[in-house]
Each structure stands twice: as structure tokens, then as C-alpha cells.
């Protein structure tokens, strides 16, 4: 009996060895035959699982679409996308980033998706000198750390925050506003920008636990209700935001809830319920993905079976910027980074030109407000000025 087991195990081990050797062979073949454009990798870094995974998945799918199209022209498996799932967590990000930098084939990174994980992972990328373009991390301080590899393809919260405030005062015409955040780098940063611009119309503030840390928001809800606010801005991501909206509705509060790009996702209505979510306003520091030029919207739908979501178009552009760089012969990370500093790229979502700190050129910033419709989907409402 025991001998039989040993034999079976041995057989499995031999099989595994053979398969492993075959796998080694096949990879070494492709890398040896690759010269010039092919045989390089582009990485995605962000949440593919976890409570805020939708935003990461949008980005990954946008980038993967760009790489697929490139490979159709230049041969299958020409450029490979390496997916690094950070689960959106600041704690996990450094480990995942160290894993990423060991892969010397990677010429550029689309991501990291969120601000908190960016602060944790970007220093590692900077040290390894791998250029990155984040299509979504909007915390302003990220551009002030002196990282030479950092590029941001959207507006930051210094533009998004005031735009939200402008929408509250000029469109909603709310006199009393309550502002809360989830204490994350992104959420608190954005909420501070909103508070600063709103000034005296802020009638109360609060700070909740981060995503997954808190589900009972009764104290915050009570403060909002008793403050008499008619608008409530929450700096955070869509899950907490949706739970808050649901519990506010349950407590009878009838005002308008607002959120930034972290709430701009159908996941908001999934948490809140369509009835409670309808009418909420969320912003995006870029133009709506559904307004992307060219065939992007239909191609995305054809490949993934879902509509292009928040930042999928920007991620598509970011990946294409790297691919254009490879086309131009920038096949080392150093050359790629120099190329990005002078790039002037016309994408489907926007035109891209980076300042010396890696921010998008001020003339190219766009901020849009979306309204959540009765089916829980954020629909583009209007472009809002940030000053």
C-alpha cells in the first residue's frame, strides 16, 4: 500500500520535471528569437482582487487590450503583460513591487492604481528605475517625492477637489455640506482639498474606518443628519461610500451624496442599492471612458463583454505610450523614461505631455461630474471647472 503510494508520487514528480523542462525550453526559445520590439514585458500593478478590485480590473483590461492589439500587428506573444495583484493594499504593495522589479524584461508599469499603494511601491520602482504611468492615483503628494520614474496620466486631487467643491456650490447650490473620509492617502487627501475650497459651508466633518474595517456607520450618519447638511462628500472608495449612502437613506436623510473617482463605479450602487444610489454625484479627473475617441469603446466591449469603465481608456493610452516607445527603439528602462519625459501622445482619452515632476501638462487636465442613474450606473453629467 505504502509502496504503491510512493511509486505514484514518484511518477507525478517525474511528470512534473518533464513538464517543467518543456516549459523552460519554450520560454527560452521565445526570448532567444526575440530581438528589437518583441520579447519585452509591460506590467500592470494594482488591485485585481479585494474590496476595490473593480477599479484595478478596469485598468488592467484597458492595458491588456492595447497590448493585444499590438501583438496582433507584431506577432502573438510579442509583448507580454505581467499582472501584479496588490489587492489595493498598502501593506502588500512593497512585497509585490519587489517581486515586480526582479523581472528584468519589464520596460514599464501601468499603475499602481491607488494612491496609498503608490506611496508604498513607487520608491521601489524608482530605485529600480522602471518607468511607470499611473492612470488613476490622484494624490498630489505623489508627484513631489522626486521620483524620476513617476508619471500621472490624469489630473490630481488638487484639481479634482476644487472641482467637486465648485459643483457643490454652483450646481447643487448647497449651503451646508458635511465632509468625511476613510483616512486613506487618497480619501483624506481629496476630502481635505474639498474642505479647503468649500470653506465656511462645511458644517461638520468625520473620519471613518477604511474599507472592510467598518460596516456600522451609525455615528457618522447621526452627525450628518443632525448637522442639517444637504450635501455630503465622502473621500474614499465605493464600498464604504455605498454602505454610508444606504444607511443614510435608512435614517431618512434626503441630501445628495458626492464622491471622487474612487466612487465612480457601479460597485457603489451594488453596495447602496439602486434606489439609494440614484442621484449621487461622482467625479473623474479625466473624460468619461464612454466618450473615448476612435473604436476604443466598441473594441473594449468586444474583448471583455462589458462597457469600458473608469480609467480603462486612460490605462489603454498609458500602455500604448509604452508600446509607441518600444516601436521607437526605447527597449531599456532608461531610454523609456527619457522618452516619456518628451512624449507628446495623442490617445483615445486625452493628449499626454508630462511636466518635469511627471504630472500631466496643466492645459490637458479635464474633470467630469457623473450622476448615478436609476440603474445604479454613473452617467456623464457635465465637465466641471477646477478653479
Amino acid at each position, binding site marked *: 500500500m505504502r509502496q504503491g503510494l510512493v511509486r505514484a508520487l514518484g511518477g507525478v514528480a517525474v511528470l512534473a520535471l518533464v513538464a517543467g523542462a518543456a516549459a523552460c525550453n519554450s520560454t527560452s526559445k521565445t526570448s532567444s528569437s526575440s530581438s528589437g520590439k518583441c520579447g519585452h514585458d509591460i506590467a500592470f500593478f494594482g488591485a485585481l482582487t479585494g474590496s476595490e478590485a473593480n477599479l484595478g480590473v478596469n485598468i488592467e483590461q484597458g492595458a491588456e487590450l492595447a497590448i493585444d492589439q499590438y501583438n496582433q500587428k507584431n506577432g502573438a506573444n510579442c509583448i507580454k503583460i505581467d499582472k501584479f495583484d496588490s489587492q489595493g493594499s498598502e501593506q502588500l504593495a512593497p512585497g509585490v513591487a519587489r517581486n515586480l522589479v526582479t523581472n528584468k524584461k519589464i520596460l514599464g508599469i501601468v499603475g499602481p492604481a491607488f494612491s496609498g499603494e503608490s506611496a508604498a511601491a513607487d520608491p521601489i520602482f524608482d530605485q529600480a528605475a522602471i518607468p511607470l504611468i499611473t492612470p488613476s492615483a490622484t494624490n498630489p503628494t505623489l508627484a513631489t517625492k522626486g521620483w524620476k520614474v513617476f508619471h500621472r496620466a490624469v489630473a490630481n486631487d488638487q484639481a479634482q477637489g476644487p472641482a467637486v467643491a465648485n459643483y457643490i456650490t454652483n450646481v447643487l447650490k448647497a449651503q451646508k455640506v458635511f465632509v468625511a473620509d476613510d483616512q486613506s492617502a487618497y480619501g483624506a487627501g481629496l476630502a481635505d482639498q474639498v474642505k479647503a475650497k468649500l470653506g465656511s459651508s462645511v458644517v461638520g466633518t468625520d473620519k*471613518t474606518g477604511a474599507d472592510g474595517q467598518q460596516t456600522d456607520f*451609525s455615528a457618522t450618519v*447621526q452627525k450628518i443628519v443632525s448637522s442639517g447638511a444637504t450635501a455630503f462628500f465622502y473621500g474614499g472608495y465605493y*464600498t464604504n461610500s455605498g454602505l454610508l449612502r444606504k444607511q443614510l437613506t435608512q435614517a431618512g436623510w434626503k441630501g445628495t451624496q458626492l464622491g471622487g473617482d474612487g466612487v465612480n463605479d457601479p460597485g457603489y450602487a*451594488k453596495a447602496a442599492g439602486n434606489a439609494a444610489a440614484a442621484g449621487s454625484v461622482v467625479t473623474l479627473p479625466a473624460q468619461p471612458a464612454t466618450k473615448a475617441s476612435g473604436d476604443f469603446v466598441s473594441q473594449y466591449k468586444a474583448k471583455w463583454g462589458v462597457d469600458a469603465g473608469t480609467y480603462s481608456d486612460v490605462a489603454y493610452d498609458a500602455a500604448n505610450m509604452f508600446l509607441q516607445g518600444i516601436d521607437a527603439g526605447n527597449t531599456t528602462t532608461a531610454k523609456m523614461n527619457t522618452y516619456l519625459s518628451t512624449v507628446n501622445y495623442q490617445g483615445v482619452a486625452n493628449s499626454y505631455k508630462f511636466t518635469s515632476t511627471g504630472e500631466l501638462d496643466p492645459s490637458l487636465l479635464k474633470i467630469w461630474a457623473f450622476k448615478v442613474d436609476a440603474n445604479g450606473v454613473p452617467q456623464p453629467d457635465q465637465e466641471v471647472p477646477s478653479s
Partner: protein
Amino acid sequence: MNFSGLIHNLGPLTITGLAQGAIYALFALGYTLVYGVLRLINFAHSEVFMMGTYATLITWGFFGLNQNSATPGLGSVLGYLVLGLIAAIIMSGVTAVVIEFVAYRPLRRRNAPPLAFLITAIGASTVISEAVGVATHRNLRGVPPLIKPATVVHIGNTTITNLQLLIILLALVMMAVLDVFINRTRLGRGVRAVAQNPDGAALMGVNKNRVISLVFLLGGLMAGIAAVMYVLKIGDTRYDAGFNLGISAFTAAVLGGIGNLRGALLGGLVLGVAENWGAGLFGTEWHQVVSFVLLIVILMFRPTGLLGESLGRARA
């Protein structure tokens, strides 16, 4: 510190705190019952609760209810509530007993050291929560709007909604029923006997293993009721719904005196109110700091918790 905010909102914060505390209390019973009999912290109890929340939602989903459906009429709401409660109670009870069978009983038979139980408890908890996480893609599941919020009591700026009243009353009734069961019935006497002196009880003809299964079952039933209250109050559940709530409920059990049924009720209510007052005074980011400082202060003066003593010694 925002004293005027706290004083202005004292009534509403107390009521919402009591409602949350009632959920803690029912949840805490599972820890307290098992600890009273086995001297074991069943960390997998948070998953007993989480399974209950899913059982309720799946049952309601079976009737075509989801979070975007309209509120049904009063008669059918009552029917759905009862069905949801039954489903949650069965699921939680079964989960608790299965955990006992799979994770604890084999160890007990081999006289494993207490640390081994702690590890299997954490292991069972992780296995169940991660399995549900993978099966549900770690998504939230929304709760149908069964109870239309309506204010039933109105004093000053303090309002009590129908849901809050239901939660608090249901918790009190269940506590009373459990208290009578443990203190007045034959089976309850068996539980107390095993808690007090397992060997003595065995000599007197009490089946120890059956009593242990019974306390796991009772804890599961209470967690099932807490699960229904939770989904109605919070409006969503997720694979990790039990984790943070479990920590709070465990705190409540220790605060009231672990192993003491009435202590669990008192601890839960005190903790719920303290958290909300703390949130009102210092801001919501401090609510857990406040509750744990309170716990430490109380344990400094009463090391066995507010009501002290354990199940066996309390009313032997």
C-alpha cells in the same frame, strides 16, 4: 473634542449604540457559552455568524427579493422575516456544530493542549471565510429593503425607528429565553453541571459531548438571530462580515465577564453605546480606541468583567 456635538446627539447616539450593542450581545453569547463550558475561545464563531447572514439573503433571494426590489406588504414582510430567521438559525447552528465536530472534538479526544484548539479555531475561521470569499468573488451582497424605516418613538431630537426597536426587543427576548433555558431546564442544568465540574457531571450521568454540542448549537442559534439583525441594520454582507464584528463581540463578552450570559448582554450594550459616544466626542476614527480604553479600565478594577464569574459558578 466635541462636547456640544455629543450632548446634542446624546439621545440618537445612545439608541443607535444600543441597537449595535444588541447585535454584539447576541454574537457574544456564542463566545461566552463555549468559554463557560470548555474554557476555549471559539474564534471560528465569527464565521458561524457570517454563514447566517448569507443563509438569510439566499433564502430571501429564493423568493426573488434583492436589494433593488420594492418593499413587500406587511404580511409578507413578517413571513420573510420569520423565514430568514429560521434559515439563519439553522445555518449558523449547523455551522457551529460542524466546526465543533471537525475542528475541536478530534483534538479533545486526544487531550490536545489548549494552544492547539486556538490554532484550529483560527484555521477553521480562515477556511470558512476564505471559501465564502472565493465563492462570492469577495463581493458585497445587498439586502432587500424589507423594513421601510419609520419612526415609532419621538422624544426631543431622539427618534427610535421600527428597526431599532425590533433589534433591541428581539435581543432582550432571546436573552431572556436563553437565560431561562440555562437556569430552569434539565438540559440547561446539564450545561451548568459540565461547566462547573466536567468529571463530576460525567459521574452523575451527564453526557459531556452532548452538552458541548448543545452549547455550540445554542451559540450558533443566537449568532443566526444576530445575523438577521445585522443584515437588516447594515444593509450588506460580505465574506469578512464576521471578522471585525467578532472582535467587538469578543470584547463585549470579556467586558461583561466571559462565561456569564447576562454579562454578555450588558457588555454588548455598554460597548455599543460607548463606541457611539466615543465617535460623537472624538470622531468616528476613535470609536474603537474608546471602547478598548474602556475595556482596559474596567478590567483594571474588575478583572473578571462587569458581572464577573463564569457560567458554572454564577448560579450553581
